[in-house]
């Protein structure tokens, strides 16, 4: 009780008095916690909807039969003949485009074999080729009723369907279609995406599993439901992990600020602590007092952060979903849901960071001796003498960071890489006092010559309050370093992708079905389309490309096939150093040889001349890796055959894309018009080379939009910190400002002095931040990115962007000094000089 009363007097009262600073600190924590929550919630929402919405209608599936290249529907007969009490339902799953609703999941099902709910909606009376059943969720959103007609685009055709029934699934949006019609639309006659198995509760589950297993070829997989979802989540793990780490930056920056706030609190109350110690307060009690203050910031900031994060998540979910869709797997964002565990985790994160960052200043408070509790100079001198010792620790941290950056990933995660990053930040923070002192000493003459006494006082003032200055510089430098490193990484990646697009996209026109084509979605072209395009005058060659999702060693990848000879003649596909492009491409046709993309090779530790066992259709095929090529289009990775080889194993595989090369001398625009005219009856997009490249760059930029947003928040937190700290500095040095007024300083001179200090602070932070950012970008590019995604990125720092961004940050730092500067100029010199 007595402690609580003292806590109120010593901690709460000053916090109330400095309301602005208190609010700034809480907002910093709230922003940090908010970003972490937002990214977590948005990540969950954007990736959490892999469960088949069909389940809402037909109930939970017990097993799923899947195969690379699709399941041959002839196995249905063998399965239904099995002496087991189980039901087998063929399914085709695809994305269709519905004019008013956009992309929607379409299931091709055999109505007769489905459960009773689906049977209730069976459109028996109508023509099965044009009848669909719509889920009640979708029907309600679009205002559909039985008998309505809908234009639905599947692959490269749009057809009018009649709503024959509404299926009772309020929380799901999907369309059911007759399976034969789905096969026709996908151009995959005789093949199914999967067979769902429903085992009777009275049947021995493992017996069914055994019977099915021995019936089907070895290349077929029997999966438990949810495997796909789990696998998707696993595939997204690296992506979400990296995003999550990025979201912690703001919290790290916030940690600096809490450290700063508690340090200020301790420095200001040294005399009071001394008195308390003199009248019998124990060291532990003093420690608890200041940890209590940090706890207060942590709690208040976390609670505000939860509300803030919930709001930000709504904005972030779209950005995250877009990346997931374009790089990983098609999914529809679910609603953002704030569950109690997320709330608890957020509070725990905020409080833990607050307590951890307050530990050092609180321990310092604990060691204040009653006699030492006078004056500020002694403490500042203390921290100055430690600058050299800290430099030693900084060097040590840097050496360990370099060693860690060489370590291999742990559980597919670049944990050592992240530890190296964190240690580099620690090294920078430890080096900050020495850098500030060095800079102050180095620029004293110039600053005095340029800015007169205000310059001298600003530089000296900052160096004198070194302990505080270096923390603010550390916080700002961390935010700048993150901005610079991620900026360099993304800039380098962008440049690498642009160069790669130039080597990859050599055809004049690209043709693909207009239906939704996210990662893992490969809508088919009608069988006759390649022939129609080849026959157009002006077309020299058509590379027919087949793509399908497949699974290798438990991971999803893309299996592709094109004409290796065309790629050799026209393309500039780049292989890893030392590999002969021509020889590799020549070696593919008609042989069990493939090329694999760099991410695939890295994920599966594949090297040239390795033999892969690929399950293709009903068979297991041994193929030799002829070469590894650079690819940045998908993190899933590619295995590419010459189409003559792949079609031998999957003869019904439809074409998914065409690369059209125009004859020399022919006008590409005219040829494009001719192609469009010839394919007028098909729903295809015909994109000229330039448009495709631009589109790729646009997707790239959108993918990294969230990264920039996260950096923006980190910078904002650092800015709040700069304002907070400058304000604290003004309050602490008010005696000095009062004295300067006695000595003849005009209010304008005081303002100038504070703004110069802010400017100097910004320069020191920029120098340290850019240097650290450069180092971190190397870790990001060559360690973290390589271990997480398997891409080789060429180093291309975007100097102009970095210069612009750091100037902006510097200007904002100066702006953050305006209010403190005004506060300094408004102080009453008589009051402050006679406080003692």
């Amino acid at each position, binding site marked *: 009780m007595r402690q609580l009363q003292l806590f109120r007097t010593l901690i709460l009262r000053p916090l109330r008095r400095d309301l602005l600073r208190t609010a700034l600190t809480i907002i910093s924590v709230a922003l940090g916690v908010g970003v972490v929550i937002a990214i977590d919630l948005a990540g969950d929402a954007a990736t959490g909807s892999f469960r088949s919405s069909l389940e809402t209608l037909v109930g939970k599936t017990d097993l799923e039969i899947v195969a690379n290249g699709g399941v041959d529907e002839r196995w249905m007969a063998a399965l239904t003949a099995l002496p087991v009490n189980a039901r087998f339902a063929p399914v085709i799953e695809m994305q269709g485009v519905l004019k008013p609703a956009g992309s929607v999941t379409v299931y091709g099902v055999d109505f007769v074999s489905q459960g009773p709910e689906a049977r209730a909606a069976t459109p028996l009376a109508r023509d099965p080729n044009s009848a669909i059943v719509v889920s009640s969720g979708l029907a309600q959103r679009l205002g559909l009723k039985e008998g309505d007609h809908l234009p639905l685009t599947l692959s490269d055709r749009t057809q009018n369907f009649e709503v024959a029934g509404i299926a009772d699934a309020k929380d799901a949006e999907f369309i059911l279609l007759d399976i034969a019609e789905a096969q026709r639309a996908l151009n995959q006659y005789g093949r199914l995406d999967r067979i769902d198995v429903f085992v009777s509760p009275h049947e021995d589950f493992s017996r069914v599993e055994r019977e099915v297993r021995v019936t089907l070829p070895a290349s077929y997989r029997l999966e438990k439901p949810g495997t796909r979802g789990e696998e998707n989540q696993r595939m997204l793990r690296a992506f979400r992990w990296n995003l999550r780490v990025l979201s912690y930056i703001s919290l790290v920056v916030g940690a600096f600020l809490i450290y700063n706030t508690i340090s200020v609190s301790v420095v200001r109350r040294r005399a009071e602590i001394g008195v308390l110690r003199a009248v019998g307060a124990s060291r532990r009690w003093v420690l608890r007092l200041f940890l209590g203050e940090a706890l207060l910031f942590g709690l208040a900031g976390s609670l505000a952060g939860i509300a803030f994060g919930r709001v930000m998540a709504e904005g972030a979910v779209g950005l995250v979903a877009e990346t997931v869709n374009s790089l990983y797997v098609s999914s529809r964002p679910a609603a953002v849901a704030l569950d109690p565990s997320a709330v608890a985790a957020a509070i725990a994160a905020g409080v833990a960071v607050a307590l951890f960052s307050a530990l050092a200043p609180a321990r310092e408070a604990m060691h204040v001796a009653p006699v030492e509790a006078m004056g500020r100079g002694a403490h500042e001198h203390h921290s100055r003498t430690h600058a050299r010792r800290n430099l030693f620790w900084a060097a040590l941290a840097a050496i360990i960071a370099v060693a860690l950056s060489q370590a291999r990933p742990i559980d597919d995660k670049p944990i050592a890489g992240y530890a190296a990053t964190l240690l580099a930040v620690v090294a920078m923070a430890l080096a900050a006092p020495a850098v500030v002192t060095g800079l102050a000493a180095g620029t004293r003459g110039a600053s005095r010559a340029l800015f*007169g006494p205000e310059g001298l006082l600003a530089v000296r003032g900052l160096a004198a309050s070194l302990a505080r200055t270096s923390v603010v510089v550390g916080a700002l430098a961390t935010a700048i370093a993150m901005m610079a490193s991620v900026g360099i990484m993304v800039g380098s990646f962008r440049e690498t992708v642009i160069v790669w697009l130039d080597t990859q996209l050599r055809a004049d026109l690209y043709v693909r079905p207009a239906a939704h084509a996210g990662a893992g979605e490969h809508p088919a072209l009608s069988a006759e389309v390649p022939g129609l395009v080849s026959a157009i005058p002006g077309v020299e060659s058509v590379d027919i490309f087949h793509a399908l999702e497949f699974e290798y060693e438990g991971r999803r990848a893309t299996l592709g096939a094109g004409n290796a000879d065309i790629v050799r003649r026209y393309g500039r596909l780049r292989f890893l150093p030392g590999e002969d492009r021509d020889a590799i491409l020549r070696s593919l046709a008609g042989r069990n040889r493939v090329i694999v993309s760099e991410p695939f090779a890295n994920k599966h530790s594949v090297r040239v001349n390795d033999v892969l066992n690929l399950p293709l259709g009903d068979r297991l095929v041994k193929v030799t890796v002829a070469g590894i090529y650079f690819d940045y289009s998908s993190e899933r990775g590619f295995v590419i055959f010459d189409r003559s080889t792949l079609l031998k194993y999957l003869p019904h595989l439809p074409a998914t894309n065409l690369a059209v090369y125009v004859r020399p001398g022919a006008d590409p625009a005219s040829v494009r018009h001719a192609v469009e005219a010839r394919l007028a009856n098909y729903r295809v997009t015909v994109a000229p080379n330039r448009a495709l490249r631009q589109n790729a760059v646009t997707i790239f930029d959108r993918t990294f939009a969230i990264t920039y947003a996260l950096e923006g928040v980190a910078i904002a937190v650092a800015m709040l910190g700069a304002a907070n700290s400058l304000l604290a500095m003004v309050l602490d040095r008010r005696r000095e400002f009062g*004295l300067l007024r006695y000595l*003849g300083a005009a209010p304008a001179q005081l303002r100038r002095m504070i703004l110069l200090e802010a400017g100097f602070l910004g320069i020191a932070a920029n120098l340290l931040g850019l240097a650290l950012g450069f180092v971190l970008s190397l870790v990001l590019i060559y360690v973290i990115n390589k271990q997480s995604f398997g891409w080789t990125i060429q180093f291309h720092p975007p100097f102009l962007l970095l210069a612009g961004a750091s100037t902006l940050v510097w200007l904002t730092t100066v702006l953050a000094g305006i209010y403190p500067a005004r506060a300094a100029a408004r102080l009453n010199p*008589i009051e402050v000089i006679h406080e003692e």
Partner: protein
Amino acid sequence: MNPPRLELRRASKTYQTNGQKLEALRDVSLVLEPGTITALVGRSGCGKTTLLNLAGAMDFPTSGEVLIDGRDTSSLREDELTALRRTRIGFVFQFFQLLPALSVLENVELPLLLAGSQKAREAARNRLEWVGLVDKVNSFPYQLSGGQMQRVAIARALAHSPEILIADEPTGNLDNASGEQVLALLSDAAGRFGATVLVATHSAEAAAIAHTRVQLRDGRIAAFERA
């Protein structure tokens, strides 16, 4: 005839604290001439510091006038007051008030730098020579003794050769030997530089060097004594 350098005419100062009136100074009239030392003596809270602030144009009377060379300080604009402090007034404080981040030389040249003087360094060196601390130019305040710090503070107060030197308990925080050195410097400031020195003190030694002693009691002049 020239007006007196510093004159208080029936100056009173009232503060409002928590709705209560506090009369710190009542009806004080005083004339101070160049080259003289005036000591303000009296108990704590008798109004010495308030009088110093009025005389140094840091504060203004609630009624009455404070005139510097015949000009009422209340009528001066903010920039004129700043100019006044830069050129004509110097302050010495009980707790020295040196800036810990600046060296001894930089502390002394500070008023000159703030005023935009071109010969700040030279003038500051001269003053440090005068107070006998020229060998400490590159030292920092925390490296000096209390007496040395107060000598630096006096050098700073006189760096710009002000006509009025205001000193608030200049020996209050010093031992006897240091106090004597400081008092000698104040005498020298009046005698050698012709400064009008107004010093608030509790010390009999400090009061002894003054040409005029003014005893304050409850904000009023209780006794006036010329040496």
